[in-house]
């Protein structure tokens, strides 16, 4: 139970970063931290007591494996997270080129 609470604390740390940081790069990194906490929760969901890693070994049969489906989900989600972070960083660099600053208080053309 404590591991789930710790993952949730990590999610809140990421959320705090997105809400209060003013640097664009720090916002992007905080979003990444939030994503990683969700991946940890997903992998922990698949844990079974006394299970070993789900690799088929022809020598020993009839083992208790942990659930491999959340691990496959997390692999795909990591790649999606990579794509999202790469997009954010590319836009942040282009914004720096236009505005000469990373501060979000300066980047405020759209209102209303």
């Amino acid at each position, binding site marked *: 139970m404590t591991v789930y609470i710790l993952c949730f604390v990590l999610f809140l740390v990421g959320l705090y970063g*997105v809400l209060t940081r003013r640097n*664009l790069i720090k*916002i992007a990194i905080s*979003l990444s931290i*939030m*994503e990683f906490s*969700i991946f940890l*929760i*997903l992998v922990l*969901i698949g844990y079974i007591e006394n299970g070993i890693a789900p690799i088929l070994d022809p020598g020993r049969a009839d083992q208790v494996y942990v659930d491999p*489906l*959340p691990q496959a*989900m997390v692999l*795909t*989600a990591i790649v*999606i997270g990579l*794509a*999202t972070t790469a*997009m*954010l960083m590319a*836009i*942040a660099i*282009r*914004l720096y080129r*236009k*505005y000469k600053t990373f501060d979000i208080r300066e*980047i*405020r*053309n*759209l209102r*209303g």
Partner: protein
Amino acid sequence: MDALIPLFVAIPLISAFLIMLLSKVIKGFHRFFAPIALLCLLVMAIFEYANLGQSSIQYAVGGWSIENGYPIGIFMVLDGFSVIMLSIINLIGFIALIYSLSYIRKYTAEGNYYALFCLIIAGMNGVVLSGDLFNLFVFLEVSVIASYALVAFGVGKTELEASFKYQVLGGLASMLILLAIGLIYWKTKTLNIADVRSVMESGYSKPFYIFVQVLLISGFGLKAAIIPFHAWLPDAHSSAPSPISAMLSGVLIKAVGVYVLIRLFFNLFVFSHEIAVVITALGAISMLIGALVALMQWDLKRMLAYSSISQIGYVVMAFGMGMILIVRGDHLPVAALAIGGGLYHLVNHAVFKGLLFLNAGALEHRLDTRDLKKMGGLSSVMPITSSTSFMASMSISGIPPFNGFFSKLFIIIAAINGKFYLLAALAVGVSIVTLAYFLKFQRFAFFNKSSDPSLNHIKEVPFSMSFSMVFLALLCLALSLLAIPSVNEALLQPAIDVLMQSDLYSTTLLGL
């Protein structure tokens, strides 16, 4: 024909990467190849719609069929609701692509634009066809990441800022959705939508599922831009290039927002009264606030973006009313009318909002401005744009004989018959406010006498742009034929049946 189903995803993916590969080698390859690919998809979608009838097709990818009652593979499902969404996506995609053949010449790197456009279509087709939750998430991410890149396509200051805001909020939404999918897997140990439903029917713990449903409403509400999750939409839709605004506002917020919300809440979760009330309330508030803020806008595309929030509020409110009536158990024909009105308004809004954004793009293409105060008197020099935008404005405000009138009429009649008098009054009031700001758009853009003499030398837009606008305007008129009961039953009834008998989805798919 079930061999066509994976091609809806495979064809745009292959064409996107072929365009990336060959557009530097063969000049003009992208301008020739992308419309052909999307025309193929449109023909396939209409073919599937015509052949479907009352059944639903299930396609097991990779040949992994159901063993011992456990669906262990990935399934792609085509039923009445999916095929309507598929037709809208491919139709509006094709028309927006024809429009952008001449609009995108202003920008550089055209090959990238067509590749990203095909990727958005591939992602949305995957979302409406997927039969299990994680596949839906992956295709949702594919289309949404492509749309982040397309919003920032003309790399000016406002586009980049709008894209950054959109990305942060969209990333937050995706994480909430992934958390909800993980929690559903924890309790039911399966990811297939039909299988989750059958596990839930044998017993579930209510507070846990209320929590999961709230997470899903937040996540998909962020994608569908319901109030209070709408903060990214005015910036993103007004800064994007106009055919992309038409795609975003016309299909993306429906295919990855409203469609998934309705599919999961009707066919996956057992109905609960509190969630139905929440959905109806959110829809009603979006309807009201979107219209009131749109009155104050002078930027044309920002006004259209807030109008999108308002009309999506109509759709969500209609589905919410249907849910409340089904939970109460009485007035089931009224629930069918509400759901039918919501579906009809979904289709209509794709057509006329797409047309309005294409008109705004035509004005921007010739005048280089989006400010209503700088336009005026254009009805004599741009006749096609003026007449099509007049038809679209009359449609969206609900004037007969255009299609918007009939869909709003269905929703209002359903509200009155289901004794939701406050919602009916709100719907009529918001319709009048919609008429107000669209008349303001028409007057300031087309019918005012402007003091700027340079506006007399504006010419009409090129052929591909005017062809798209005229096609959508004729479709506005043609869709009003859907109000005739016999046509309605043939075209919309399979979707309504799938949604009303909510366990039909799981029993047909697991029994096959």
